[in-house]
């Protein structure tokens, strides 16, 4: 028995720095990192592998994006993924989630052909830039896999042919059973992602990593990219910064002053 896990990863602008739109109304990715929310599914995949060596887990990271996005798969390999694929094709520029998910789904099928099937696709709960959370359900729909979004805990199911999960809804916690093949998105509550150590960083350099074009995947280039997008961004305007107000130093009376402020603002 073996279990093949694909983790789609995204290269996104670093939220700690100033994030901007470019003139073509796409987000500037020149100062990018692996989306932090993609570290959680990677960690979940590694934890599944470590919990059951006999399951022979293979973890493959896949990214869709321009040349710089190779940074995302590099980090994934350093964290512990076994192999990586990077779909890089000029025709993908300006794709919306439909286009990106089509390319990702094709790449996942490609992994399946090379590795004897894909059992599980583990994703983050959202990207830290687009924040739409639509790619996981889109992948489930395209691949005809079962779907569980926003899993807060991830464990093997009884037979190791699926997973036992929990997820929080607006007012309850659900326990969920899912059989492979499945797409599961995990939240930032799921685990504590590891930092790659020096040994892992060196080992990553020897791992297989391949670049694919849309033609390699059999995806018609006219179905992706800006011209095929179903949602088209018309404008992007920086929001005026919120003006800072009054700042007082506590000299022993700040609690009383604050109560007076709240009363004056009619907030009590």
């Amino acid at each position: 028995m073996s279990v093949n896990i694909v983790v789609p990863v995204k290269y996104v602008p670093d939220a700690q720095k100033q994030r901007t739109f470019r003139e073509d109304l796409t987000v500037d990715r020149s100062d990018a990192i692996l989306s932090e929310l993609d570290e959680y599914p990677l960690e979940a995949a590694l934890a599944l592998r470590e919990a059951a060596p006999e399951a022979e887990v293979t973890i493959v990271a896949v990214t869709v994006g321009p040349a710089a996005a190779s940074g995302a798969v590099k980090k994934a390999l350093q964290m512990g993924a076994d192999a990586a694929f990077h779909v890089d094709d000029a025709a993908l520029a300006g794709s919306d989630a439909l286009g990106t998910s089509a390319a990702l789904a094709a790449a996942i099928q490609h992994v399946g052909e090379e590795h004897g099937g894909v059992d599980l696709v583990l994703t983050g709960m959202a990207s830290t830039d687009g924040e739409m959370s639509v790619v996981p359900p889109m992948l489930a729909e395209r691949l005809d896999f079962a779907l569980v979004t926003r899993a807060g805990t991830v464990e093997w199911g009884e037979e190791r042919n699926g997973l036992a999960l929990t997820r929080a809804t607006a007012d309850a916690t659900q326990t969920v059973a899912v059989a492979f093949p499945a797409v599961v998105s995990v939240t930032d509550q799921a685990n504590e992602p590891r930092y790659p150590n020096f040994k892992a960083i060196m080992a990553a350099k020897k791992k297989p990593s391949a670049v694919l074009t849309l033609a390699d995947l059999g995806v018609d280039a006219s179905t992706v990219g800006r011209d095929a997008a179903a949602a088209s961004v018309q404008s992007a305007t920086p929001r005026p910064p919120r003006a800072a107000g009054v700042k007082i130093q506590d000299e022993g009376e700040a609690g009383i002053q604050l109560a007076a402020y709240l009363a004056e603002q009619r907030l009590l």
Partner: protein
Amino acid sequence: MNVLVDLGHTTALRSPDREVLTLARTVAAGGTVSVLTHAPDAAGLAEELGGFDVAVLLAPQDAAPDLSLTDTALLDAALAESGATLVLGPNAAEVTDCFARLAVRHSAAIITDAVGVDADRTVTKSVLAGGYTTTVEPTTELAFVTVAPNAVAAGEAQGGQAPDVKPLAVSASGAAATVTGTQVAPASSRPKLTEARVVVVGGRGVGENFSLVEELADELGAAVGASRAAVDAGWAEHSAQVGQTGVTVSPQLYLCAGVSGAIQHRAGMQTSQTIVAVNKDENAQIFDIADYGVVGDLNKVLPQLIEALRERKG
């Protein structure tokens, strides 16, 4: 334009539902508004929908036996029934999941987290943690749009007629997960975080003594929120987390203590009307957006504030 509103598993209207229904009534501009609930027992909901000019309430005959698959089929059936070209819903995972799947099935646009939708379906949304406002247009005949909470003012129900309830029978085949257990969170006596007029939030700086934040919240009749650091430390439930991976709040008063104001936290609270922050570090980022900042030790300031509030109440 005909509009379909998907309220997820709602059996009683909450404020995000009312906001979406208000928006639907406006953009439909004379077209019909149909509403879908995924919960089988819909009679009470129909009563509540009376004031929102809803033509029909579609509801399933039975609860879905699986996660996502049957709910998606139900929305697809409702879509065919309604003839809608715009499908709206609150920005909740269960709704987004169905929308995204059908966006693939129908090659239709999906736009999430709208803060506004025009009659020509142009969507306004806030992106990059509130750093930019974008306008997005669907290029397809059908579009799915989820609406951010607290972005549209919920209109008053106008005392119209309750819509007819039309049962939908669907079956779906395909791979799906099953829910094996549900634990409902115990009801809190405090207001709901996303709907509260006042929210009091504690961060890592609060330390073990999180009850100080709760005490202040109760004094103000407020909901309690937390930063991720406070949740990770186990001082508050994850459902209390405010921010990018928690909930978004937009209360009249947001008061935080021991919160540094990281970008991911600000993403969930910066549209609050009045922001008050207590932090001992005068350079904390939270002060950049605070209307009233107190540089000081929260262990001194909060007890004194609570005392002063009690005195004012007399």
